[in-house]
Structures are given as structure tokens and as C-alpha cells.
């Protein structure tokens, strides 16, 4: 009896001990959980991996629009395009907001600090995380023999380059991270010019190197045009980034893009409508677009924010009426009543028949620039950041499509389907003209340059020019590229961002804006939290 029990006990325990220690090596149980090696061993996996890098620009997580894959207090506020627009348009004269969030106050008043706010955190972190994801993607796919991998890697490299461009433009001297930094090793800085030089080499490599971008690609994936266009934009701003102007290179690069298979969308407003990705005319002007879809690619940032953030009920209704939609319709699905445009900026558009205090949108739309999408119902002319009913409202991005359908009343989804134009052909026209004007000493009558400017003006239904100077081009950019994320970069290039001679409401926190902004504010600070966790980083001067 005893023996049997002893031996049973010993056998049982021996069995359990050995098997149980092995149990500790668990692996995730979900089919959707994978490792690097099981992820990228098919073309499908490689494509989904790249799709995620595209998603870095438009999504806050791969689960839903309400949960973020980076640690932030508000998922919706952490979307890259949303805060990219805020940092570039709200810090200057194009976009004002009456909400009290600290990132809005700091951005409008130029009072941001290295102790991050929602906008600086979102852009910095999302760009750096995108870069890390690409580094991982490149590391894991190096040597892959799957057919088509080269082009996918090239697209990933472009998306990394664009993230570095944003960091270089906004933060000056970001940490420069490579594959070696993943899970170890602190990234170092290589200087703003270092990033510029790396980008120039990288983008050229994507155009002519061994792992090239495709000449054309399925919209909205990127092709050579995007790399060429980013080079044009970099060269135009080269003096800001490196101290050395590259105007001829800017002109050449812009010309190279113009020579590719892109074309201006005949109807300006279609570029920003809900069906801009289905509309071939709009698509042909897009060089690099961030895609959204109200069902499939949902985001509280991106164009959803631009559609819903701007209008209140009264203006939403007035615009719908102006456009001939049925009584009671709203041009924006949700009306968060936050974003405004100061009258000073609207005046670039030479609106006809402006009136304040009326019940319509406040100007004669048919007689005005076709790029103007404003409304002023119930508003006072002078923008006051503490009063919601001041300044103009903007509906450049709205809930309608090119077929006259309104995605606001008969449908319940809150999200926008409009794609956001990161780079489009019109910008190349403007880069060409500005580079030429600068080469020519500030004013140009160059036929090609005038041709490009007048093509844009003809589309807008405004008079052609017989010559253009740099200030005219800046104003043209204000009209053509409003709320597309260019304004801050433009004003810095022109030297107006810091100048007391170029006021706008609440510049530097002063209501009339007649103040100089210190030059160190032409770049945003690196995040303090990154400085304190990475001993290799040096903060930008002034912060």
C-alpha cells in the first residue's frame, strides 16, 4: 500500500514538474498575433505592414478612431494630419480657434513650451513612431526575395522621408533614428542641415537608385512624383533649413513633377469634397494624399476635423441654403463651432459684395474667387478669440460630394471621406513661379511661371497676371493652399513669421498682433520628455 502511494506520488510529481515548467513559454493565442518572421513572409503580409505605415498619417490606432496606439490624453487630438494643420495654420493667420484647450491657446499665442501640448506631442511622436516603424519594416524585410518587396520598401522609405521632412521643418533638429535604435541605443541628432542632406540623398535614391518608387501607382499610394515634389518643396525652403538657397534646384524639381502625369482638377472645389478620391479629376492633381473614408478609414482628425470643427448651426445652414440644398440642411454633419478665419486673411480673396450682419454667407460667391469658402452669419467682423460669433467660418472641407449629395442628414456617420492633400500639383506651379521670381530678383514675367500662375487663377475665375512678384505669390499661396498645412512654412521663408511688420490677430498673444515673435520660435521645441529620456539630445536654442 505505502509503496504504491509513494511511487504514484513520485511519478505524478515528476510528470507534472517537467511538463509544467515548459508551460511558462507561452505564445500569443490569437490568429492575429504574429512575430516579425511570420508577418512578412507573404506579399499580403508585406502589404499590410506597409498599409500600417500609411495609416501612421491618418489613424490613431489600428483598432478604432477612439483609441490611440501612442500614450496621449485624447486619441482624436493625437492624429498626425490634424495637428500638422494646427501647427502650420493656427500658429499663423489662417486658422483661429475659440476653444480653451491649452494646445490651442499656446499655438495661437506663440507661447508653447518644451513641456509638450497635444499638438506638439502628436506631430513629434507620430513622426518619430512612423520613422521607427519604417526602420523596423526595412530591417525585417531586408533580403526578402518576395516579388514586389522592393517597391513596397521604397514607399516605406518615402513615408519615413516625409516624416523626417515634417520634423525638420517643424522641430529643426530632431533625433535621427535608425534600425540600430530599435529597443536599444539612444538616437542622436545630426543637425537640421544633416537631415536636409540625408533627405536629398534618400529622395534622389528613391528616384534613381536601386530600390526605386514606381513611376505611377494606385491612388493613394506614392510614386516618383511624391519624392520629386518633396525635393522641390525642400529646395524652395533650403535657405531656411541649411542657410543656402537652392532656387534653381527647386525650379527644376517642380518642373520635373509638372512634366509627370498629373493634371489640374478643372473644378477647384472638387479637390476637397467627400468623393475626391473617387473623382478622377481631383485624383489627378494629388501627388501625395492622406486617405480617409467615413466607413473604412475613420479618424477624428484629418478632414473630419476640418469639416466638423469649423461651423456652427447658423453658418452650416446658411451655406447649405447658398448651395441650394433643401431647407434645414446642414453643410457639415457635426458642428463643433471652433475654427475661424480672421477677416485679415479672408481679405486676400478679394470677395465681392461683402456684408456683415446678414442672413446669407456674407458675400457674392458667384462674383468672387472660386477658392473662397466662407460664411459670416451672426458674426462680428473683428475676430475675438473669446467670442464664438466673430470672424469668418470656412467650409472649404464640407460634407458634400461632387454629385450634389450631402452626407449630413440622411446618413449617420460622423466621419469624413475627403482625402487630405499633402502635396498637389498646384503647389508645384507655385514653387516654380516663386523660384523663378526669386531668381529674377523678386519679380518675374517669365512665360512659364506666368503660365502656371494664370492657370491657377483661371481655374479660380479671377483675372490673369502679366507679371508676378514674391508677395503676390505668397498671397496666391494663401488663396490656393489655405488650410493645407503650408502657411507657417511660407511666412517663415518670407521672414514674415517673426516680423512686427506682418501682424495678425493674436500674433504673440497680442490682440492686434503688432509684435515680433522671437526667432527661436520658427522651430518648435523637442519634447521635454524625450530630452529627459534620451541623454544624446540637445534642446533647440531658446527653449
Amino acid at each position, binding site marked *: 500500500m*505505502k509503496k504504491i*502511494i509513494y511511487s504514484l506520488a513520485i511519478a*505524478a*510529481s515528476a510528470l507534472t514538474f517537467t511538463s*509544467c*515548467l515548459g*508551460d*511558462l*513559454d*507561452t505564445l*500569443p*493565442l*490569437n490568429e*492575429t*498575433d*504574429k*512575430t*516579425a518572421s511570420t508577418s512578412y513572409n507573404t506579399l499580403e*503580409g508585406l502589404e*499590410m*505592414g506597409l*498599409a*500600417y505605415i500609411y*495609416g501612421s498619417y491618418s489613424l490613431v490606432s*489600428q*483598432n*478604432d478612431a477612439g483609441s490611440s*496606439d*501612442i*500614450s496621449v*490624453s485624447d486619441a482624436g*487630438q493625437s492624429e498626425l494630419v490634424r495637428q500638422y494643420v494646427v501647427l502650420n495654420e493656427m500658429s499663423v493667420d489662417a486658422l483661429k480657434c475659440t476653444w480653451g484647450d491649452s494646445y490651442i491657446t499656446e499655438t495661437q499665442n506663440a507661447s508653447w513650451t518644451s513641456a509638450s501640448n497635444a499638438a506638439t506631442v502628436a506631430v513629434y*511622436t507620430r513622426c*518619430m*513612431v512612423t520613422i*521607427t*516603424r519604417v526602420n*523596423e519594416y526595412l530591417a525585417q524585410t531586408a533580403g526578402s526575395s518576395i516579388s514586389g518587396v522592393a517597391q513596397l520598401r521604397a514607399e516605406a522609405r518615402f513615408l519615413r522621408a516625409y516624416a523626417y521632412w515634417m520634423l525638420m521643418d517643424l522641430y529643426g533638429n530632431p*533625433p*535621427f*533614428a535608425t534600425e540600430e*535604435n530599435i*529597443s*536599444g541605443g539612444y*538616437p542622436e541628432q545630426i543637425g537640421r542641415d544633416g537631415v536636409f542632406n540625408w533627405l536629398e540623398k534618400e529622395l534622389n535614391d528613391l528616384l534613381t537608385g536601386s530600390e526605386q518608387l514606381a513611376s505611377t501607382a494606385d491612388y*493613394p499610394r506614392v510614386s516618383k512624383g511624391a519624392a520629386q515634389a518633396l525635393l522641390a518643396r525642400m529646395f524652395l525652403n533650403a535657405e531656411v533649413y541649411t542657410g543656402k538657397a537652392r532656387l534653381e534646384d527647386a525650379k527644376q524639381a517642380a518642373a520635373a513633377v509638372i512634366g509627370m502625369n498629373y493634371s489640374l482638377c478643372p473644378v477647384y472645389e472638387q479637390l476637397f469634397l467627400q468623393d475626391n478620391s473617387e473623382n478622377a479629376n481631383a485624383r489627378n492633381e494629388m501627388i501625395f494624399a492622406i486617405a480617409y*473614408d467615413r*466607413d*473604412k*478609414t475613420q479618424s477624428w482628425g484629418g478632414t473630419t476635423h476640418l469639416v466638423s470643427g469649423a461651423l456652427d*448651426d447658423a453658418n452650416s445652414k446658411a451655406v447649405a441654403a447658398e448651395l441650394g440644398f433643401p431647407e434645414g440642411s446642414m453643410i457639415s454633419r*457635426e458642428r463643433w463651432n471652433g475654427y475661424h478665419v480672421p477677416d485679415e486673411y479672408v481679405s486676400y480673396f478679394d470677395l465681392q459684395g461683402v456684408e456683415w450682419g446678414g442672413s446669407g454667407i456674407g458675400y457674392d460667391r458667384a462674383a468672387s474667387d472660386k477658392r473662397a469658402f466662407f460664411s459670416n452669419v451672426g458674426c462680428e467682423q473683428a475676430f475675438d478669440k473669446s467670442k464664438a460669433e466673430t470672424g469668418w467660418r470656412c467650409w472649404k472641407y464640407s460634407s458634400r460630394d461632387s454629385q450634389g449629395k450631402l452626407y449630413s442628414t440622411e*446618413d*449617420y*456617420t460622423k466621419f469624413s471621406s475627403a482625402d487630405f492633400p499633402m502635396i498637389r500639383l498646384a503647389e508645384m506651379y507655385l514653387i516654380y513661379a516663386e523660384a523663378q521670381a526669386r531668381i529674377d530678383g523678386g519679380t518675374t514675367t517669365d512665360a512659364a511661371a506666368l503660365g502656371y500662375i494664370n492657370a491657377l487663377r483661371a481655374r479660380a475665375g479671377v483675372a490673369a497676371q502679366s507679371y508676378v512678384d514674391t508677395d503676390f505669390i505668397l498671397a496666391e499661396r494663401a488663396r490656393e493652399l489655405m488650410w493645407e498645412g503650408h502657411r507657417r512654412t511660407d511666412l517663415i521663408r518670407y521672414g514674415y513669421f517673426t516680423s512686427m511688420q506682418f501682424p495678425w490677430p493674436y500674433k504673440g498673444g497680442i490682440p492686434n498682433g503688432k509684435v515680433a515673435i522671437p526667432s527661436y520660435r520658427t522651430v518648435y521645441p523637442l*519634447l521635454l520628455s*524625450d530630452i*529627459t*529620456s*534620451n541623454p544624446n539630445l540637445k534642446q533647440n536654442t531658446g527653449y
Partner: protein
Amino acid sequence: MKQVNLRIYRMILPLILGLFLSVGVYAQNVTVKGHVKDALGGVIGASVVEKGNTTNGTITDLDGNFSLSVPKGATLVVSFIGYKTQEVAAAPSVVVTLQEDSELLDEVVVIGYGVAKKNDMTGSVTAIKAEEINRGAISSPDQMLQGKVPGLLVTPASGDPTGKATIRIRGAASLNASNDPLIVIDGIPMTGDGAGMGNPLASVNPNDIESYTVLKDASATAIYGSRASNGVIIITTKKGTGDKMKVSYSSSYSLKQNSSTLDVMTGDQYRSYVAEAYAGTDRLAKIQALMGDANTDWQDLIYRTAFSTDQNVSLYGNTVNGKLPYRASIGYNYDEATLKVGDNQRVNMSISLSPKFFQDHLSLNLNAKGVYNKANYPNSGAVGSAMDFTPTLSPYSDDPASSCNGYTNWLSTDGSANTMASINPLSQLYDPNNSNSTWRSMGNAQIDYKIHGFEELRLNLNLGYDFARTTGHEYNTLGSILAKRNGSEDYNKQYATQNSNLLLEFYGNYNKEFGVHHLDVMAGYSWQHFYKKYDESKYYNNEIGVSPDNLYVMNPTDRKEYYLVSFFGRFNYSLDSRYLFTFSLRDDASSRFHKDNRWGLFPSAALAWNVAEESFLKEADTPISSLKLRLGWGKTGQQDIGDDHLYDYMAKYTQSSSLTTMIPWGDGYINTLAPGAYNKNIKWETTETWNIGLDFGFLNGRINGSVDAYLRKTYDLLNYVTVPMGTNFSNRVFSNVGDMENKGLEFSLNFIPIEKQDMRWTINLNGTFQQTKIKKLNEFADANDLGTTTGTSMSSNDGYTSLLRVGYTPYTYYLYQQAYDENGKPLENVLVDRNGDGKISSDDRYVTGKSITPKFFFGIGSQFSYKKWDFGFNAHGSLGGYALNKVAKNNATSYSDDYGKGYINNLSTYCLKTGWTESLSEFQQYSDMFLENASFFRMDDINVGYTFDKFAHWNGKIRVGASVQNVFTITKYSGLDPELTPNDGKFDGVDSNLIPRPRLYTIRLNINF
């Protein structure tokens, strides 16, 4: 009725006749004069009764003498607390010498992997027998523990019966990992989550519980290693006893009522206030345009007088010639919330068999329990809406411009929901349907074998399981305001969770006395597997004319598991029952961590000195009946870092299957595949505890108690820390970086002022002083580091109210200082410029040093019985905690620009007190004027009962009782209830709208036969 009465007479008649007959037979009495003494002399108050006729008895007088008339040949039973009961034959003169009852001291307490004699224990352990807890209506085991154990703080759930109470033993040891104690039910360690029910305790029927053991200090808990940092509660359920079958039935019926509501304006009050306040402004017309002429009392509409009942039957006994003790029970509990719609129903079944074989060498312990629980969750948002929604509108309407599904609501002119407006509280309650049901079963087979011929050695194998399955759904009725606000016509979510937990545990125990030496050694092994599966599907019909199939979102099954493997041992040595020594060691491995960090060693050591056993005390004439000094030290861990962190240590890729976050690709859309952030070095938190304690008893235990002081340090505290950008796939990861310190002093005191044959009075008191401080939060300490901002926002924007900050209690409030006028009235939007820079900015915030964590908490209870009456009360309270009254903040001003957004809200009468009319600035919302002392004393229950026994030869007992629960609360706190529940799992002290805790009136019936 008449028939029943007749039956009673028929029973009573023979009984009365029988009594007369018996008097005739035993008429020859003898008067016994006796003396009862112990080693010291006469014993006062000892009970002397006639055996078999307990109504005939007396107690000894001041000299220990008594006199009692009994039938000739009768036997006397002499008893007194702390002494062995003695029987003597009746004689004209008897002298009884009582012996001290060592069995009382030998009382056995269930501890981890075995039992221990109370007298031999070295750790800080509180054991409670369920029968000692006498309460009105108990629907969950956590209620039974409330206020009963020093160091144990039970914060009851809100008035929602599906809510969960929060249990903290000696404060929180962690910031981000679990702070719940480990619950062990009949030897099975439970998972921290409730597996579909509030918490793991909810799976046990309180009526089935035999005893609780609360292990507090590390010397007691370390045997549970990496799960023991927050203490351990061991629950043992009842087993079969006695011989023939007995039946126990209990039943209770309760009515519940809210004791108070918040004071908001009536429709008339609002109308006249607006007319006066905005007279002559253009605002008046705009507000009036939105007003109705109703006088709706929303709070009255959403609350009700609720009902609950509890029914239990148990059968127990011992059959097969006393070889098979058994017990079976079934219970039903129905609990309704005072907030309409909410209720919870539960059926519990349990069966236990504990046979013994081979002359008691082999004992088997088989337990199985089953639970079915069905919950209807009320939408707690209605509590806040009832204050906000305008009283000027009537609740119901059929006008499509201002109602959905018959409920008045705020709509935009295009018929869509006004998403900024408040919601009709009734539509919030009745439009959604949120319910689930859970089946759960757990059980174990414990096989204990004392080796033949070597009985000192006992081998114990325990096999256990715990399975639970929950299915539920959330549904928003078609066309309801909630559906519209949610962005779809309707919404239907269905989900199912499946949990399983398997246990295999084996230990050997060697227990032997060698003269004055006593050795008790245990060594064992444990394996536990936890598995969790979650399925969810959602159906949105958000596009008319589109086939629903297209919009049916089925998320892939989410499966998770982890294993715990442990080796453990304990060594107990006692010398002459005077000097006790315990050493324990556990080597634990958790699959949650990387191979290199997986194993952890958790030792403990303790010493105790039974001073009372020393001859100098034993022989001296002192009132001391017991005195024991305990010293303990140990290390424990916390491996429960959250189920979202099961695979944190490995580089993992996840393929999304979400239909809303896809990327356009070619002609269609594809899902994404992403690497997730990870931290290879993640491991458990470690807690080191020192404990010194003193147990004492005086006057034969009529005064007894204990005092414990402890110091607890937690290392490798998990916190979300920033990672250098470019090195990981997110900006922060969960990492072991912090330290925390926790110290406290706790005591319990029990008095028995009266102990007589038919009268007994007991008083229990316990209290705990505690202090928790964060010692370290980041890898690189920085003196200027503010800490981590946390705590619920006070405004509609993002914001924080408190800090995790080095040197302070977690969730220490970080606020602006309010400025007051000379009359002490707060000035609106005037805060103190603390840094004197001429403006108010975030630099003017200050660390208040206050938090919700009380400095002292206590419990008090008393039972009094006289003859067949019993009476008792229980109360608890806390001192020194502060609550941030967000409800008051929300109602501090009459200002509103809501009319501009197409709706109006009601006003609280509180704004009339402040007299404020401006919009509150962001700074004002975070003012310390809303910080209030949340100290309180709450009378948990008062109960009274009467027991009927002796119904002729029917050997049963019937107790009828009545009680009131949540009787009253004494507090200075101005909000509804100072005892706050966590917000999103965080005990941050912000008082948002909690479902009020109702008052209960209960009647209770117990029948035992």
C-alpha cells in the same frame, strides 16, 4: 387560516399534557448547593444548568456559589467562557474546579496550504467565523467583511447592485498593477477579475461561508508569493457536520429607498430665476424660446423604491455511519437598484462531501459550486442627466421635432441629435438594453492522506477548476436618442467571455511533537493555468438600404492565457508553545514575463513569543489570560499587472481586423499589420513588509485584542514611462521604475461586558492608521519633477486633478487656491496668485497634500442578546480623507451659454448660494474650494431578532429578525455620499455622479431543524 390554527392546537395539546405527565413522574427534586472555582478561587458568573433542560439554570454569585433545584439523579452542566465545560452529578453539595480550556486556544485557523492553531500563529492574521457576523441582509461576501478587520478597507459599490466593492488590505501597494487582495476559495486562488461578475467574491453565496481568514503581513502571505502583495483573503465554505440530516432555511425581504437627492430647481423656480436674472437682456428671449411650462422632477422619475430578496436552503449532516459528512445548498438572490432598470439575479448552488477512509487516514474533500447570475445594467449617466435636463419640459412627447421614441429630447433643426445637449434621463434608462448572464462553476477535490504507520506525514493533493461563461448584449433601440448620438440608427453589440482556471497543487506536511519541541514542516508545488476568451460582434444598421450583413462587424476571438508555477515550503518550530518560529519560501514563475525575469523568490520569517505561557505570568496572579508578541518580515510580489499586459515582454505583431481602420489598396481596402511596443525587462513588483504585533487577552479573554504596526515597501513599481523616441513603437511603455512606502498601525479590541446564562453583550472595535508615500517614480530622479498628472478632469476639456508625486500619497490633489472675500465667501474666478507673477497660470497650482486616502479608518460593532432576543449594530467610518466635489463645481454658477447651442440645462440651487453668474474659468474649475473633508461615520446596520425554539418535540429553531441598513451617515461633506467609488478604476477622489447608495429595510427569517 382556521385549519392551520386547528393543526397548531392539535400539536400543542399533547405537548401540554405531556408536560403535566412529566411533572408527575419527576416530582422528587433535590436542591444542589455548590461552589465553582478555578486555580485562583471562586468563579463569578459561571453558568450552571440542568442537563437536558437548559431552562433550569443559574449562575454563580460573587463568591462562586450557587443553588439550584433539580430532579433527583440529574446532571449539572457547569460552563464558563475560557474554561472547559464540566458535568457533575446532582448532589446536595458539590464543588466544581474548572479547568482552563486549552481547546479555545487550540482553535484552528485556515492559512495558506494548511491550518494553524491560533495560539501558534506568528503572522498578522485575522480570522472571522461567518456566524460571528450578524447582519441584516447580506447579498455579497464583501459586505460581511466591511468594518470587521483592522487594516481591511471595504468601499462598497455604489447603489448599482451589479457594481463591485473595492477591498484594500493595508492600503494600495501599487499604482498601475492590481491592488486587489488574492482571494482563495476552498483552496483555489481566484483570478482578480470577476469572470463576468463584479468581483471574485460575488461567486460565493454568503450563506455558504464558514470562515474568512485575512492574511495581512508578509510572514503570513509570502506563501502565496507573487500574488500576495495586497494581502490574501481565504474563504472556507461550510461542510457537513453532526449526524442526522439538518435543514437550514433563511429568507429575507428588503425595501430600498434613496435617503437623499440633490437639490435642483423646479420648473417654476427655473422660470422665475431666468426671468429675474436676465431681465432686459437679449438672452432672456433666447432662453425662454427653449423653455417649456412643465415642472418635471427628473430625480423622482428615475428612482424608485426597490425590492430585494434572498432565499436559501441548505441540507447537511453525516451519513454512512458518520463516514460521509455532506452539505448541499441552494440560494436565490434578487436585488433591484433604486435607479430604474437596474437589477441583478443570482442563483447559487453548492455541494460538499468530506468522507474519511482507513481510520481517518485518507480524507477527501469534494466541493462543487454553481452560480447563475443575470444582470441588467442601468445607464448611470441618467444620474447626472436628472440634474441637468431641464425641468421645464415634460418627459414624453410625440412631436418629431423634439422627441425620439416618445421621449422629449434636444434635436437639431435637421432632425439629428444635438450631441452637445443633455439627454432625457428616462430615454437614457429605457432606450438601451444592457444585460448579461453568467454561468460559473468551480470546485475542487482535495485528497489528504496520512501515511499509515507514519502518521506525522500528510500528503495533500488539490485539484481545482473554475469555469465561467458570460454572454451579454448592449442594444440601443432603433431611432432612440442614444442611437442617434452614437452615429447609427441602432446598435447591437453581443459579447461572450469564457474564463477558465485550472489548479494542481500538491504538498506534504510533517507535524510532530518531540517533548517540548513542535515541528511543522510543509513543502509543495503548485501549477495554475488561466485562460480567457472574448468574442464580440456588433451590428450597425447605419445605412438605409444596405444589407445588414455588410455592416455586421465580427471581431476575431481574443484569447489569452498565462501560467503560474510555484514551489513553496514552510517551516514552523515551537518550543514549549512559548517561542514560535516560522520561515517560508516560495519560488514563483509567471509566464507573463521574459525567461530572464520569470522566476522570483519570496521569503518570509517570523518570530513570536507567547509571553502568557511564561511561568512568571502563568503562576502570578494577573488578569492576563493571553499575551503574544509577534515579529515578522517577508517579501511578496504582484504578478497581476493587468490582462492587457500578458505579452508585454515580447516583440509582437498584431494584424488588425477592424473594419473602420483600413487603408485603401488597389480596388479595395486592406487591414494593417503592426509591431506593438514592448518591454523585455518587465517583471513583477516586489513588496517587502515588516510587522510587529501584540495579541492580548485579559480576564479570561473577556477583553482581548491585538495591535500591529507595519512598514511596507514596494519596489519595481510599474509605471508608464517615456521611452526615447525612435527606439520603440510607442512613446511610453509599462516599466518597473518606482518605489512606494506604506506604513500603518492597526488594532482590534473585543469586549464581553456581560456573559451570563441568558444575557450576553459583545463589543468589537477596530481601527487603522495608515500613510502611503511614493518614493520614486522615474528611472532618473529629478528634484523638480512634478510627477505624473492624473485624476479625473473637472471640466469638459482634458485635465487632471491630482498627482502621483514623490513624497506624497498617490492621487494627492494638485489645485489652485481659492480667494475669498472678507466674509469668507469665495470670489468667482479669483484664485490666489501663489507665485506672485501678477497672473494666474498653471504655475500657481499647488500640491495640497490631501488625498482621498483616509488617515484613519475604523469599524465598530456590537451584539447584545437577552433570552430569546438579540440586538446588534455595525458601523464603520474614516477620518482624514478628502474628496473633490465635481458635482458642486458643475453647479457653482448659474452661467450658461447652452441656449446658443440649442438647449438649456437646469440649475442647482447651489449656485444661488455662491451667487456666481459668470462662466467658470479653467482655473476656477480646479479650485481647492471644491476640496472637502470626506471623513464620515456610517451606521451600516441595526438589527434585532427573536428566536423561537422548543416547539414541543420539534427540535427546531426559528429566528425572526428585522434590520435597517445604511441607517445614517455623519459627515461634513456636502455631496451625496463621502464614500466615493473609483473613476475608471482609479481611486482619485473626484466625486462625479455616483448612483446613490440606498437605505434598506429588511425582515429576515431563519429556520433550522
